[in-house]
């Protein structure tokens, strides 16, 4: 008979528990309460959301469809008020009384707020849920934020905000950062790395009072009298199990809700999992043990025998771009010995703490590639006497000869954790392979390994390689060029995740084989860097193809063509006269109307370019970017102005779009068209982005082409107003800028990521995309002609003229 199960809290532990239950086909009618007004998401991925590497949509683990498919009754945004264990009923806040057969506590934990004077001011928050994350994301560049707490959580908050341009100060009471996971030396390296990211770090700093103004936080006052001004103060000093409801219900509670090895509380019909529990005196904050608990709880609910066993856990720091690992116990002590390896030039530090030839703890900074192997030694209490001499160098150096890197993976036991985000161990991946998964995509789909942050992707591929042997071929994606083995996508990921903001940094970190790239990779890198870091990166003209370096199209005889912008294809007699005068003055041999409704002056000599530009500028015209991997033209029809069929002001929209988008660099050229009705006189359906105006609004479609390939656009969205149309177009342009491979037109990019993905992203983070687009436009929406005429005209002339001298 179907039993009633009430689950309190939709967190990572209960989410995983429900998965196990439903996977096993357990017969439960589940009602899920959650105080947050949403379902289960991957809370440890809030940091990448904060730093902008992921969106909220990407970290949702169970969506409405999933709950519906499993028949879960969701009561999100609601709390349980009381529980009557004798009657076996729970009463919701609105008074509903629900009977249960089994009840599971997954109430998680509350952030600990230091009761400093002023802690209740507006603008003082914790770092715990999506609301907190959103507050931090909304702070905006150039604002000030103070983070109290130099632990994992505080540093991820600080690094995430710093990545968004916020001026961040971290205040930590201890002498070095992350003192529970790191020793002083590693703490120092971490501090230095954070300072390099522009974060101010104050250790051994005692907070005294939070100062406010009109009820809002203004500054943090330290007990040495220092005042740190801030617009937002984040307290990230720790968490406390949330036991209030359990306590009120009369369950046994210590630091957390007491559970036994079966995850049962002091009431045999009530279980508890996650951060709210206390098991054998321990409480839990990392995800791996929570998932173990979830599995045990599910088995208990199904009447199976299972036992929760506490294991060694390790910590890796994500997000901040600092490679850092710590595991086990590394405190000094009687009889303990250290092996320390330092390479200051590479910023590498490794320390092992050993007692009786057993590794007790490991701290690594800068190079954590071998961390899994060391963690295995700690957990398995391996006797290291035989390899002590070479131990610190890692698994590749054990046994006299360097080992095949795959040997280290092959040697891992089945319960070695491969994917920390999802708590997936090697055995689960091997089982998935045995069940037929033969590539990374299948492993991701069947086990979730490497499906979150992705740092373990290489390891998962190695497990595949070891298990499948010759049957596994590493997907050999084409590299950018001969200078590197990395693909465009890999390099873009590195630029974002490692915060590489200069070309030398990319060459260094990605192991370029040439000193300064080549004509293939340099223009691509130049684009990626300026698209990702518009405020920090300075455009490199020497990495641009001549057309963009000289802002004119090179022709086969070394002359250039010049195209002034005509907004939306509209011009005036004055402009036409100025173009005609320029054509006469500079003896332009050919004047042609282009396919994008502009006038092309062909055959201009290089040294005449600044002069002809100056003349056209003087007549009010700017560069048409007809040479650029950027916005070219917005082609229009006449719309409602003159046409008897036109439904909207298509010319006006075209002009406005061109004025907002011009100057934006994109992976390839970007052409737009706006047609006033489905007769499509502007041929909008073969442009990169096309708009068809209809009576009810604007149909925006993307992915058209009329070049090497001829393609029709596909519908992205229809919106009712002009402003929404402009915003969608900006958002999709920015998404294309941030994600596409250099020299992929929109249709090629769309073939890789899928139109549905583009739709989802534009819907989920349209405003943020528009904001990032606008930010970039503050730097790049300018007329290069005017700039070169005043600052670089010399460069267009010969360096010297020796023709007379040679004739002497």
């Amino acid at each position, binding site marked *: 008979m179907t039993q009633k199960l009430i689950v309190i809290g939709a967190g990572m532990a209960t989410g995983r528990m429900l998965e196990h239950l439903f996977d096993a086909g357990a017969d439960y009618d589940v009602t899920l309460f959650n105080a947050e007004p949403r379902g289960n998401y991957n809370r440890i991925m809030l940091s990448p959301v904060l730093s902008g590497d992921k969106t909220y949509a990407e970290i949702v683990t169970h969506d409405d469809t999933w709950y519906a498919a499993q028949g879960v009754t969701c009561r999100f945004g609601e709390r349980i008020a009381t529980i009557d264990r004798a009657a076996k009923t729970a009463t919701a806040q609105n008074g509903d009384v629900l009977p249960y057969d089994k009840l599971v506590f997954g109430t998680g934990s509350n952030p600990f707020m230091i009761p400093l004077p002023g802690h209740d001011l507006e603008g003082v928050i914790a770092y715990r849920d999506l609301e907190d994350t959103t507050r931090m994301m909304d702070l905006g560049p150039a604002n000030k934020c103070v983070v109290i707490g130099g632990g994992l959580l505080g540093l991820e908050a600080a690094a995430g905000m710093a990545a968004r341009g916020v001026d961040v100060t971290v205040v930590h009471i201890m002498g070095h950062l992350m003192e529970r996971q790191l020793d002083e030396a590693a703490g120092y390296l971490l501090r230095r790395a954070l300072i390099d990211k522009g974060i101010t770090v104050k250790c051994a700093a005692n907070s005294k009072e939070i100062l406010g103004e009109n009820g809002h936080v203004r500054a943090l006052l330290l007990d040495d009298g220092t005042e740190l001004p801030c617009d937002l103060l984040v307290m990230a000093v720790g968490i406390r199990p949330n036991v209030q409801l359990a306590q009120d219900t009369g369950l046994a509670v210590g630091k957390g809700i007491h559970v036994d090895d079966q995850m049962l509380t002091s009431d045999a019909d009530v279980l508890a999992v996650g951060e709210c529990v206390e098991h054998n005196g321990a409480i839990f904050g990392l995800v791996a043990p929570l998932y173990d608990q979830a599995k045990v709880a599910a088995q208990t609910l199904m009447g199976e025998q299972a036992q929760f066993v506490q294991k060694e856990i390790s910590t890796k720091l994500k997000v901040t771009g600092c490679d850092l690992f710590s595991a086990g116990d590394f405190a000094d002590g009687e009889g303990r010995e250290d092996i320390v390896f330092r390479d200051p030039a590479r910023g590498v530090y490794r320390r092992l703490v050993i007692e009786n030839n057993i590794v007790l703890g490991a701290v690594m900074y800068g190079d954590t590639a071998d961390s899994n192997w060391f963690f295995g030694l700690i957990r398995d209490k391996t006797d290291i006497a035989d390899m002590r001499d070479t131990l610190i160098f890692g698994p590749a150096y054990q046994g006299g000869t360097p080992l095949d890197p795959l040997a280290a993976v092959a040697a891992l036991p089945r319960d070695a954790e491969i994917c920390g985000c999802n708590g997936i161990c090697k055995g689960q991946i091997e089982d998935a392979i045995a069940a037929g998964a033969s590539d990374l995509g299948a492993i991701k789909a069947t086990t979730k390994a490497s499906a979150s942050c992705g740092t373990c992707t290489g390891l998962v591929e190695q497990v595949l390689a070891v298990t499948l042997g010759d049957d596994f071929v590493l997907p050999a994606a084409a590299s950018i060029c001969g200078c590197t083995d990395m693909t465009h996508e890999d390099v873009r990921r590195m630029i974002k995740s490692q915060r590489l903001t200069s070309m030398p940094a990319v060459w260094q970190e990605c192991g370029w084989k040439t000193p300064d790239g080549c004509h293939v990779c*340099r223009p691509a890198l130049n684009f990626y860097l300026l698209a990702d870091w518009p405020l920090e990166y300075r455009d490199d003209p020497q990495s641009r193809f001549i057309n963009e370096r000289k802002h004119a199209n*090179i022709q086969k005889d*070394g002359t250039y063509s010049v195209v002034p912008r005509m907004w939306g294809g509209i011009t005036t007699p004055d402009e036409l006269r100025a173009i005609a005068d320029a054509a006469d003055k500079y003896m332009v041999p050919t004047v042609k109307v282009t396919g994008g409704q502009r006038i092309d002056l062909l055959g201009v000599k290089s040294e005449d370019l600044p002069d002809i530009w100056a003349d056209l500028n003087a007549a009010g015209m700017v560069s048409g970017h007809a040479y650029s991997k950027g916005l070219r033209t917005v082609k229009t029809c006449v719309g409602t102005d003159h046409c008897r069929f036109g439904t909207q002001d298509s010319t006006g929209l075209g002009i406005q779009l061109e004025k907002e988008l011009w100057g934006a660099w994109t992976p390839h050229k970007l052409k737009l068209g706006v047609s006033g009705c489905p007769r499509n006189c502007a041929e909008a359906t073969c442009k990169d982005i096309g708009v068809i105006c209809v009576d009810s609004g604007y149909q925006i479609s993307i992915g058209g082409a009329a070049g090497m390939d001829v393609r029709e656009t596909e519908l992205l969205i229809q919106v009712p107003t002009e402003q929404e149309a402009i915003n969608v177009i900006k958002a999709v342009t920015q998404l294309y800028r941030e994600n596409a491979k250099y020299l992929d037109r929109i249709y090629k990019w769309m073939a890789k990521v899928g139109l549905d993905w583009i739709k989802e992203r534009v819907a989920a983070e349209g405003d943020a995309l528009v904001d990032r687009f606008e930010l970039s436009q503050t730097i790049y929406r300018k007329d290069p002609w005017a700039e070169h005429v005043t600052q670089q005209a010399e460069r267009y002339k*010969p*360096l010297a003229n020796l023709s007379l001298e040679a004739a002497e």
Partner: protein
Amino acid sequence: MTSWIDIAALDDVPQRGARMIKTALGCVAVFRTAEDEVFALDNACPHRAGPLAEGIVHGKSVTCPLHNWVFSLETGEAQGADEGRVATYPARVESGRILLDRTFLQARSAA
């Protein structure tokens, strides 16, 4: 014997860039690498006469802007699968000035 003539300041040519010099017998391209070495080559690519001074400079090579032929700045030889060569001329930097050899430049007329 060489007779060096002062052409311009090193900084008049951008790093990883080039500028063109007019001579009575056509144009010479002066290149500056990331390491601040300078090289002088005929400006015209032997393939379709593309202006090499407008190419992308990388390492000690330049890529022609018209059809991506790559030439060694040291030898003038086309790299990779392409075959061809551009003339090279002695060039050096002294006290931040670019010097070219007049004798060699004039020898172009004899060639």
